[in-house]
């Protein structure tokens, strides 16, 4: 048993690595020049090249893959020469990188050819100091300095040979002299919980993603609570009445519900409840971050849409499993020996019949996530699915990668749990 578990977990880890590799390079190869999307098509090639360098996109792809996966602060640490720490800025709630110079948190800034050190005071403010020492000399005689700049990057300044760079500010794009020669945008890497910055918003992906994941969990959770009892009930009813009119009706309705795309059923529900009857809100308009809790009505239509598709699938599954069990010899024996029908169904058939659907449901999370993407897009529900959709349309690699990895992780881990649960429930499969 232990060997089986270890093997499953090992294979899961390999799968995850493969997924991350495929994801990164698919977006790498395909997404083209992201700087055009950010800066607009009017930007000049110099501006784009400068901005590419600032985003660290001029590094080789394989290195960026590892930066993305496990971070690059330890790599930058060697260059800077001081330990790098990231602390949370209390105002923006974002992580900031500082170099720890002998117990003093420091960043550097270049102004008119003069290097300034910004020292962080305990209250969060910073003081400026002139820096004269600390420059290193390269083999060709050039003097250079590696430091952490104010935009969370490890940068390399070369004395007397400042690069002309284009700096993106809130007001627009500004040309500056004295720029660094090389940039390493500092990040902790996905495995350490840092998904990097969204190119679309300029904020860390995680800051946006977390509340959205919560919204999606609420949506999927509520839908799940509705689906399970109903689907099992319908499936069992159809299963024990195999071939009778009730079974036919349930099966055909179930097939119809499964075969109707989410956006079709969603739109019909909007038509019926939102437009003709006017009893439920037709869009999930969030007026505050906690709108789903203060106004649960918002959830009604998304949950119904999601439930309709899943309901059909799970009840078909349950029916098939129930039919199979009901035709098993031991059930026939129980009926023949005169046991009450109700007792046969509840005591003998049900437990065996439910095993398949319950594990299948665990494997089915993939589908649920897919449904969530569409449902959230229909209703404008701010969740994980909408996030993937929006960032895929914009072509925001960091955001797409982080969100897709999250969905894959959810899917794989539930599948692992499903596999393990199945082997516990059904010992016969264990050694096969």
């Amino acid at each position, binding site marked *: 048993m232990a060997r089986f578990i270890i093997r499953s977990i090992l*294979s899961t880890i*390999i*799968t*995850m690595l*493969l*997924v991350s590799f*495929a*994801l990164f390079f*698919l*977006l790498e*190869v*395909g*997404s083209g020049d992201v700087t055009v999307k950010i800066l607009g098509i009017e930007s000049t090639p110099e501006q784009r090249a400068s901005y590419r360098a600032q985003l660290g996109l001029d590094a080789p792809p394989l290195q960026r893959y590892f930066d993305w996966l496990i971070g690059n602060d330890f790599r930058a640490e060697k260059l800077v020469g001081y330990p790098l720490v990231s602390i949370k800025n209390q105002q923006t709630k974002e992580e900031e990188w500082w170099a720890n110079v002998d117990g003093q948190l420091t960043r550097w800034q270049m102004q008119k050819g003069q290097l300034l050190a910004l020292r962080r005071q305990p209250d969060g403010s910073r003081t400026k100091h002139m820096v004269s020492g600390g420059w290193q000399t390269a083999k060709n005689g050039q003097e250079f300095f590696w430091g952490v700049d104010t935009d969370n990057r490890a940068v390399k300044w070369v004395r007397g040979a400042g690069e002309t760079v284009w700096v993106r500010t809130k007001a627009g794009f500004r040309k500056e002299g004295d720029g660094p020669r090389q940039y390493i945008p500092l990040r902790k890497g996905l495995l350490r919980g840092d998904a990097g910055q969204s190119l679309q918003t300029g904020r860390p992906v995680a800051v946006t993603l977390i509340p959205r994941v919560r919204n999606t969990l609420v949506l999927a959770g509520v839908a799940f609570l509705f689906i399970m009892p109903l689907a099992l009930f319908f499936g069992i009813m159809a299963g024990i009445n195999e071939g009778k009119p009730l079974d036919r009706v349930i099966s055909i309705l179930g*097939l*119809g519900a*499964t*075969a*109707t*795309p*989410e*956006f*079709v059923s969603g*739109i*019909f529900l*909007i*038509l019926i409840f939102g*437009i003709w009857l006017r009893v439920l809100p037709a869009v999930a308009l969030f007026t505050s971050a906690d709108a789903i809790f203060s106004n649960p009505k918002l959830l009604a239509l998304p949950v119904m849409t999601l439930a309709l598709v899943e309901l059909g699938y799970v009840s078909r599954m349950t029916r098939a499993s129930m039919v199979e069990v009901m035709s098993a010899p031991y059930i026939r024996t129980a009926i023949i020996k005169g046991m009450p029908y109700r007792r046969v169904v509840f005591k003998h058939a049900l437990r065996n019949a439910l095993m398949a659907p319950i594990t299948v449901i665990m494997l089915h999370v*993939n*589908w649920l*996530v*897919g449904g969530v*993407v*569409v449902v959230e*897009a229909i209703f404008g529900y701010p969740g994980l699915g909408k996030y*993937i*959709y929006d*960032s*895929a*349309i914009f*072509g925001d690699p960091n955001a*797409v990668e982080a*969100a*897709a990895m999250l*969905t*894959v992780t959810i*899917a*794989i881990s539930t*599948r692992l749990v499903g596999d393990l649960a199945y082997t516990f429930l059904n010992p016969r499969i264990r050694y096969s």
Partner: protein
Amino acid sequence: MTVAQPALGASKRPSRLRKLWDTLSVVLNSRIGTVGLAIVVFWVVIALLSLFWTPYPPNSSLFVQNLPPNLTNVLGTDHLGRDLASRLMQGTQVILLKTRLPGDTHVAIPGGVALWGVFGSLFLGAILGLNAGYRGGWWDQVIMQVLDALIAFPVIVLYLVIIAALGQGDLVVIFAITITGAPGVARLVRSLALDIKTRDYIRAAETRGESLAYIMYREILPNARGPLLVDAMLRVGYAIFAIGTLGFLGLGLPPPDPDWGNMVNEARRNIFLNQWAVIFPSLAIASLVVGLNLFADGLREEITRYQK
């Protein structure tokens, strides 16, 4: 597709198509299957008809906007005053009959996006599944590991990632359907190959000294035909489902050809004014998918009954 095929190539290879038809025609014994077949045939006929005739040009705004169904426009008009019936008819073509190649030219190859996508996943999946199932050992381990990684992606997410990476277009959608479908096909083929390779005729072929490729593609694959056919029918349904969803999300097949999903998406913005433009394309997608599902169900029922 199913009816068109025997008629289409009957002159070329009657014997093999005859066999295919014999496999498919058992579906007529099942009531559900016949209903499904009728729905599918209806749409195929509509698609063929739209090649030669639509009531009005599908892309020109000839009428008042957002009309309900009336005598001139049987299904009404959309938000740009285009005839909805013509657009629906034309919309079947990209799914079932033609694939437009990238570029400005109006070059199209026969066979719709859904069909090529399913063909692609069958092709890729069969190769992977046969190698994993018949060769076993490391081949099996590596192939299944890679497939596990692909299956781990929620399908829609994989579509979104592929389209985010490669852009829009008929070929990209075909590629996306191929990639998402291949793991499922490969698993099916692998399990079938594991079963079939224990049979005597495979042992005979091995003793004769046939090559690996011969055994895999000429001995095992033809004998795995039945379940694969059912799976393919279901997959065409999924593909149409997926194309509709992508179109609805605004990421599907590009204009100028109308795309059902995109028609729903555009009409949705005027849903308060005109519900018909939403209802008809939705019904079209749902009916075609349900039809293919029923057909596949009927086929499976009959094939497994025959085996029992």
